[in-house]
Each structure stands twice: as C-alpha cells, then as structure tokens.
C-alpha cells in the first residue's frame, strides 16, 4: 500500500498548532502536531474529548487556519496556494461529519444535495447524466432504492442512510482524501460495521486515503488494522504506531492506561483485565495545563524532577514508531 519513500505524502502536518480564545486566555486545542499520511494509507486519531482530534481534522480539511505550523497537501502549504491550486485541494479533501442529523440540509431533497456539487463543478452534462451519477454513487455507498430515496428529505431517512448520503455527497467531487470525524459514532451499533466496510471499500476501489477520527479504540483497531494509530492527549500526539503494535505493545503510559481501562464487549476478557491505576482522576484543564509532560499528574510512572519540568518530544523509536515520553526514551536510549 505504501508507495516508494521518495513519494511526497498526500497529507502532511508540521508543527501544527491552533489556539482559541483571547490573548490572555489562550487554549491550545492543537499543540505542535506533526504527522504524515502517505497515499493510500489510513491514519487514526484517537483520544478522549478535548484532546484536539476534531480540531486537527478541521485543520487538515482546511476549515480552520492554523495559528502556527503548516498543513501540506501534496507537499504544498495550502494557505500559501494560489486560488486555482487551493480550489483543487478543496475538492480533493473532504470531511464526513459525526452527526447525521446535522450534516444534511433539512430543506433539500437528497437529489438536490447530491447534484449540487455535480452541477456546480460541471461534472455532469445534463439532468440525465446527473441522475445516472446519483444512482452510481448510491450503489457505491450501498443505498437502495435510488428513485425512492432521491426524492426524500433527510428527516425521512435513518441515521445510517444519512451517513451514506454524506459519503455519496463527498464522493461527487472525486476526493483523494477523506477525514472521517467520528463518522459512525452516532449510528446504531449493528450498522456501524457495514458503514466501515463501505469506507474500507472506498480505500481499495477508489484509492481514497483516510484520516479516521474516533474516541472508540475498538473501532479504530477494526478500521485501521492495516494502518496506523496516533494517540492524542491534550492537544498533542503522544504515541504513533501501526495498529497491531500499538494495541499489543503500547509504549506510552497513557496509551497503556487507555487500553487497560477500556471496557470490552466480552465478559471474560473485560473482567479479567489488569487495570492500570492512575495517580489522579482529575482531567487537565486546558486553561491551566500541567507543567512539563501534560500527563504527569496522572502518570503511574511519573519521575519527579523530569516529567513535571520538561515536555517530552515526539521521537522515533527506530522501528517505525514514535513516542513522547521521557521514560520510554530513557529505556530505549533513543536519540532524536
């Protein structure tokens, strides 16, 4: 799947940061985040609420401007592009929203919703062509029967159907990159897998690269089994590795805590799991961040004098993984 290393990654973020609020009360929702997503890959962003994963998604989709750092599409900084280049980027990167009840305009019919971009960008030559294209897209996303659904308004469709419409709409402009922001979180459990399978097919058949944002580790593991996971905490990436290794051998204490804490849908597995106790229950306040490593007040492996003083940088472990932890760096004698 991964192309030759000389290939420019499709999406790259470098030292990306985004702040909100006034000068006196600044919240760094995204704080110095860097990663690459090569063509055809899947990168999952996981983390708890407030970790900055949604903001990162919006930065990648160009819906927000970074306060500092760069967001690169095919090697070019999108905020330094010329208008025509930016237009190309705009349609190449799409985002699927979380809430199926808010992502479709309630006043429009499904036909209006899907054909708006088709007509706007002259992707179809006539109404006949538009209709055909709708049917094609519906087949790709698994919506039937087309004639019936195209006349309806969003409120007449189920949550799962609406998400599929969202995906079909995104596909009208032939994107090469899709940010899925908790795209299946608000859909019934029994339907999630089929939505994820559909998205997986997009990757294989239409060469779409994914940034999959979720708070659900199990979904991340399932969807990105042959991809990578980046774990975020309070605005920064603290660990990045390919999925099987991250799940089976987590290095960062926060990742370890998450994996041990997550309740599993398997009684024997979940009741026999070793839980890692944390030093504190308090969730860090974004207005009053802990000094040094943001996780240190809760970290069971906290080293006084180090972790509360200096922020660990995200470094390569040498085998394709990255971790931001002093302890791990020490143990592995890692150099930047």
């Amino acid at each position: 799947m991964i192309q030759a290393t000389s290939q420019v990654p499709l999406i790259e973020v470098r030292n990306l940061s985004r702040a909100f609020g006034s000068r006196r009360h600044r919240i760094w929702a995204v704080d110095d985040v860097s990663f690459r997503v090569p063509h055809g890959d899947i990168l999952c962003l996981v983390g708890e609420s407030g970790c900055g994963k949604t903001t990162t998604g919006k930065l990648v989709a160009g819906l927000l401007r970074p306060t500092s750092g760069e967001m690169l599409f095919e090697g070019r900084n999108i905020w330094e592009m010329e208008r025509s280049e930016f237009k190309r980027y705009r349609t190449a990167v799409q985002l699927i929203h979380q809430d199926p009840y808010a992502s479709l305009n309630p006043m429009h019919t499904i036909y209006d919703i899907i054909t708006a971009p088709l007509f706007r960008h002259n992707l179809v030559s006539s109404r006949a062509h538009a209709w055909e294209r709708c049917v094609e897209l519906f087949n790709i996303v698994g919506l039937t029967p087309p004639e019936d659904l195209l006349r309806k308004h969003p409120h007449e469709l189920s949550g799962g159907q609406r998400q599929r419409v969202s995906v079909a709409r995104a596909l009208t402009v032939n994107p090469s990159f899709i940010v899925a922001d908790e795209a299946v979180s608000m859909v019934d459990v029994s339907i999630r897998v089929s939505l994820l399978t559909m998205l997986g097919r997009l990757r294989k058949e239409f060469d779409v690269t994914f940034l999959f944002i979720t708070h659900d580790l199990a979904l991340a593991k399932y969807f990105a089994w042959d991809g990578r996971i980046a774990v975020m905490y309070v605005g920064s990436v603290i660990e990045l590795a390919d999925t099987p290794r991250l799940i089976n051998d987590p290095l960062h204490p926060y990742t370890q805590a998450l994996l041990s804490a997550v309740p599993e849908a398997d009684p024997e597995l979940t009741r026999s799991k070793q839980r890692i106790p944390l030093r504190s229950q308090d969730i860090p306040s974004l207005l009053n961040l802990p000094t040094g490593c943001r996780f240190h007040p809760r970290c069971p492996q906290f080293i006084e004098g180090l972790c509360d003083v200096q922020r660990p940088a995200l470094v390569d472990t040498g085998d394709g993984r990255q971790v931001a932890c002093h302890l791990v760096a020490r143990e592995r004698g890692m150099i930047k």
Partner: protein
Amino acid sequence: MSGTMSSNDVIRSTAIYQRTTKDILLGILKGIGEFFRLMARNRTGFIGFIIVVLYFVVSFLGPYVIPVDKETKVTRIFEKPSWQHPLGMDHEGRDTFSQVVNGGRDILTTALLTALISTAIGVTLGALSAVLGGGIDTLLSAFADIFMSIPQFPLQVVLAGFIQVKSMLILSLILAILSWPGLYRAVRAQVLSLRERDYVEAAILLDLGTWHIVFKEILPNMMSYIAISFAFSMTGAIYAQTGLVLLGLVPFSSHNWGVMISIAWTRGAIFYRDSAAYILAPVFTIALFQLAMVWMTRSLEEVFNPRLRGRA
C-alpha cells in the same frame, strides 16, 4: 443489494426526471395544490389565509363589479344601513359599502410594496453582514441601531411632511426605510448561527460558492421566519399608512380606508348613532385584515418546514 441495474431500471429512472411542458404545467398545478393542502393543515391558519385571499380578490377585482358611488345625495347623508346599502351612507349621501370595496386597493398595494422593499433590504443586508463580517458588519449594525432607536411613527411623520409624498412608491419607500432594521438584526443573528451548521461546512468543503451557501443553504432554513416577517411588515405598513393619512400627510390618496376614517372623523360621523357604520366599517375592515394575516402566519410555518409536513 444488487450491484448493477437492468435496462428496464435505467429506462424507468431516466423517464422519471424528464419533463415535458405538460409535466411542468402539471407540476405547477400540483405545487399550488400542495400549497393549499399545507395551508389547510392548521385550521386557524387556513381561515386566515382564505380571508386574506378574499381581501385581495375583492380589493382588486371588486371595483369592476361594484364601482364607487360618486353621486352626492344630500337627502341621504349618514343614512342608516339598509338592505340596499348594507353599510349606510357617508357624509355626502354616498354608499359606504362601495367605498369599502374600492378602498382596499391602494392600501394593500402600498403594504405589499413596503413589505417587499423592507424584507429585501433587511434580508440582503442581514445575510451580507453575517457572512462578510468585519468592518461592513460593524458599520451596518451601527446604522441599524441608529434607526431602531428612533421612534418609528414620529419619524415617519416627519419624513412624510418633509418629502413630498407624490406616489405610492415614495410612501412605500418611506415606510420601508424605517422598518428594515428589525428584520436585519434578526436575519443577521440567524445567519450567524446557521453558518456554523455542519451542512454549511459541507457546502464550503464542496466549494459550492458563497452565493449558493447564502441563498440555497442558509436562507431556505429561514424562510418561515422571513415569510412571517413579511406578513407583519404588511400589517405594520397598513397601520403606518392609516396614521399618516389621518394626519393628512398623504395628499394624493384617493378614497381608501384610511381616508374614510379621516373623513368620518372630521365630518362628524362619530357623533351620530346612525352613522356608526361609516366610521366602524373601515376600522373593522382594517382590523379584520390584520387578524387574518396573523392567523395566516400559523400556516406559513407548515409550508416552509418540510419536517412538519407528512412526517415519515
């Protein structure tokens, strides 16, 4: 479930969207029928709607059927209502009923014009303000604030006295100039909030353009509010007009309901019991119209909100 379509499906589906002239006409008729059906969903609203329609029909077509009685009949001044003259006679012995029938056209036309102008200004400026933001927003908001803090009617009086009100258009403009700020603020607030919706974000991502976003994504979601504002704009214009006419600031007006009230008052119709019809008729006519408009707005909500229509 199936991956491909049979040739029959292709033919059937392509046939559905194709429209001949006959289809278009049928479509329009269906649309009108649908509109009526939606208005009928709310009983009060429907009654209001029918009354409003009747008012327009009577005011614009009535004059051809019942021409104004211009004949002065000195012997029949302030005559009581009778079968032949259901609303009695005025101060010159002319039939009141025919005056009522003929008196609506100017008032309603002005009201419509005023509502149109002020809604157009309020919505356009409000949407622009919200979407463009920055200096324009600050400027327009300040402008609107100034207008809103001045009492409307006195200012209308001053303007009407200052400017020569020579035509309905000028009158409408005067009334509209002073009533757009309210709608402007409301539209601006709504657009600001609607701008954050996910489907608007999706439209941005799909590069659908500012025009599309404002007029196809955002404004349709405000239609019921705009329609209701339009209705109240009309009622406000009617009151304002009537007030200006009463103060004699509208020199060109022919016989309309406002003039009738003014004359009835100055010619003493209020002092006689028999002539009560002459003063009450225009008052009641105006009041009933206002009431019908208010009732009608209840149905407008149904029309403009697909979620309320035949829920799935």
